[in-house]
């Protein structure tokens, strides 16, 4: 305890009855990183977190913190939660309502039988770190949600765990507070240098906070990379569509190798197929183009290779504009247009898809073609 450690997860599987919650997951969480497990509800991220904490037991696999094995199904090792030295910040905060802020935070130190002075000094120090000094004598019910969350973080930080786990810690807060606490979390991570494993279904949170993101679905890690990489080079359609609000545009097309292009929207439009990709696809194969709304270029006049599309909704939120466009076959495309190009009287805008921003995915596997 005390030192900052990496976490090695090897082939961890957990089933509940007939459902596989975590399916053969292997990840290495670097020491000092802020790794986020991201995915829709029921994807297994919270289960994985609880397995790390020792609150659930995996069926198979191995987990190491630093060089010490805390779980190994083959050697029948399962270090109990209270001896792992791993902290967990709960979604519901789980502050003990009958204890004051001070008592909540100092509890772990008391269990370690530290001296009275040291307990007081460390408790006050950690309360200062999370910006809760002066609240020592309050009871949890007298604090706001955000304050409760800070205290619950302090309670786990004070014992200096080798790894700090967080289970959707911001999901119970209102939008404004969530933004503030996000900044706070980032600051605490930088101040402590702690290894943090963070669970969320909010991809903006994952993008802004993490050094690494593991996107999960159906108990499987779909992609594990730095957030920008996950966003810009999503490894499959699930990741591409899960990341980003509004979601990425998916345009389905057919490969026409002879013309070196992909025919889109029932043939009224097409997209040039780069030379390096031609060997990876077959003629007539169905593929999906993915392009994020902010990468679409709109113009009022026709451009070389542009597609004329009908505008059916123009949503101006102030800082940015989202334009909803529709192709003749019903394909809907959302573009974020910071230049505020206005459609002409024919309610049409010309859409250009920059080749370097477009990603191609296979129809059956959903994998990135690269």
């Amino acid at each position, binding site marked *: 305890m005390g030192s900052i450690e990496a976490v090695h997860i090897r082939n961890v599987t957990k089933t509940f009855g007939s459902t596989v919650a975590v399916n053969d997951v292997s990840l290495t969480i670097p020491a000092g990183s802020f790794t986020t497990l991201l995915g829709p509800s029921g994807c297994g991220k919270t289960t994985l977190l609880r397995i790390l*904490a*020792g*609150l659930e037991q995996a069926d198979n696999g191995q987990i190491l913190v630093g060089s010490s094995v805390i779980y190994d199904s083959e050697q029948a090792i399962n270090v*109990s*939660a*209270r*001896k*792992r030295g*791993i*902290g*967990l910040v*709960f*979604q*519901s*905060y*789980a*502050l*003990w*309502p*009958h204890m004051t802020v001070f008592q909540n935070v100092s*509890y*772990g130190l008391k*269990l*370690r039988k530290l001296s009275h002075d040291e307990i007081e000094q460390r408790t006050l120090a950690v309360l200062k770190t999370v910006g809760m000094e002066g609240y020592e004598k309050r*009871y*949890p*019910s*007298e604090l706001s949600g955000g304050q*409760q969350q800070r205290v*619950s973080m302090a*309670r*786990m930080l004070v*014992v200096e765990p080798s790894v700090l786990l967080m*289970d*959707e810690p911001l*999901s*119970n807060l209102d939008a404004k507070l969530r933004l503030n606490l996000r900044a706070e979390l980032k600051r605490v991570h930088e101040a402590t240098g702690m290894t943090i494993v963070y669970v969320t279904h909010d991809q903006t949170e994952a993008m802004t906070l993490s050094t690494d993101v593991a996107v999960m679905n159906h108990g499987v890690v779909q992609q594990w990379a730095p957030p920008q990489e996950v966003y810009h080079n999503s490894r499959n359609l699930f990741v591409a569509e899960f990341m980003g609000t509004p979601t990425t545009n998916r345009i389905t097309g057919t490969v026409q190798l002879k013309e070196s292009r992909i025919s889109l929207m029932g043939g009224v439009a097409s997209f040039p197929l780069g030379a390096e990709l031609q060997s990876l696809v077959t003629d007539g194969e169905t593929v999906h183009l993915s392009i994020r709304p902010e990468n679409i270029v709109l113009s009022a006049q026709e451009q070389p290779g542009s597609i004329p599309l009908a505008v059916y909704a123009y949503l101006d939120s102030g800082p940015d504009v989202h334009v909803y466009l529709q192709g003749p076959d019903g394909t809907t495309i959302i573009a974020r247009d910071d230049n505020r190009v206005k459609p002409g009287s024919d309610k049409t805008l010309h859409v250009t898809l920059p080749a370097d921003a477009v990603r191609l995915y296979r129809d059956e596997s959903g994998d990135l073609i690269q």
Partner: protein
Amino acid sequence: MNRRSVSTRVRWGLHEIVQPRFVLNVVLAAVLVVLIVMPAVSLVYRSFTASLVDSFRIPGVQRGDLILHHWQRVIVTRSAFFVPLFNSLLVAVGTALVAMVIGSALAWLVVRTDLPFRRSLALMAVVPYMLPSWALALPWLEFFKNTSAGRPPGFLQVLTGIEVPTWLVFGPVPIIIVMGLHYFPFVYLIVSSALTNIDSQLEEASELLGATRWQTLRSVTFPAIVPGLFASLLLAFARTIGTYGTPALLGGPVGFTVLPVQIRSFLRMNLAARAYILSIGLILISVVLLYLNQRLVGTRKSFSLIGGKGFKTRPVTLGKAGPWISAGAHVFLIVSVILPLLLLFWSSFMERAGSYNLSNFTLHYWFGAGDQAISAGEPGLFRNPRVIRGTFNSLRIAIFGGAICAVLGMLIGYSVVKGRGKTFSQFLEKVSFLPMLIPSIAFGAIYMSFFARPIGPLPALYGTMALMVLLVVGKQLPFTTRTGISSMFQVAGELEEAAEISGASWPRRFLNIIWPLTRSGFISGVLIVFITTMRELSLFILVITSRTEVLTTLTFSYAEIGQQQLSNALMTLLIMIILIVTAMIKLYEHLSRRHRPA
């Protein structure tokens, strides 16, 4: 909007007065005044009033004069008030503690651990609560009874030859044990719901910080259930202190008197005023206890404020100790709940008490005709006119009481919900909850004091079935009102307003919208009152006459005059009726839940 602002201005105009809801409010208020307010006031008034007997006994006093005589006598005579009071408190404290230990241990085992067969424990743990509170007193006597006072021997003495010391047969010790075994389900239910409602993440947080299971139990789990524990302790205490049956049966023979017993003996001695004074004392104790209970709920450390989302429960693993603890708990419940009832059943087939030989077997107490050689000529249950009348009385009182009480509860619920925040609605709500504060025996005394003579157009009801039904209605009103309010909450808002806007008249709305949606709440109200009434003794014991005897009072009077087998047989019959009806209720609830549209 417009309509509402107009009607606020002409609030007491003719338009408002003829509105059905206004009429309903007035009728309900009148009913509550007659059922609760006036009887309670009359209790206090009668405690100061000289009776006909007083006018002979006390010089210069006429019947109906206001006198302080009885209050003085009660306070001066130690044996009249202070001794029974002390005994009552002793028994109540003891009972509450016994109930708390058993109830909370069982609750923890069933709710928070992976104990094998905990479902069967949960099932058995609520059985005593369904039975009359003194159901165990009879088998207790049957088992431990000694021959010291010329009584036939109990099972233990027959089996082992040991003469059980009298303090274990009669007096505070057996009373506390028997009542503790009756009231522990009460604690069990409250504590297990408190335990179910703890977010187990509170415990997990402690574990992650390095606490052992015992440290977590002590510093997190236990404080979390303390409010529930205290509440159940106070409520068990409040119930015990108004209970008549067990203390009368197990305390009477050695002169150990508690307040309810003293109240009844004052009434028998024609000292009604003193009985009323003791009833007032009982009510005051109960009010203080329930007030304390209120104060305990909603402190700033309340556990119900936090939690909610991300709620998970993870049972404590007992490991190898599990099967042993499970076996121990099963044996305990079987010995204290199931076996006594079997012993009761068995002894009802014994011609002579205390002889467990097969040759002593008889069906006389169930089917026999009157025979002067056995039990003073009392015929067996199924041929005994008193028993048959008592059964019909019990059923009639329970059915009529249940139905009337449930109807009232629904109507009051409707008025309260519709008039939220208005004085009138608050009056209805508060008054209908008052009987909660009044122990059963005192409630009986209150009705004795009020309905014994004609009131206005109402004839004297003493000795009529009507009085018995009214008693049930008044005493159980808090429960049906609570069901009424909660089921009306879901219906009497926008659902009714939508019908009103569609043009439905009030009776039509009630019939088409409100009734169909609240029917299941109504029926469960009827059933709950029915079942409580079937097992009720303390409420009726003061007011019954030979015409209005019910099963419980009859069972009790047989036990009192030493007709033990008859009494045992009757108790068995009563328990069977209760269990069958309870099973039917469960079945009904199960079915109605299945058929309810989502």
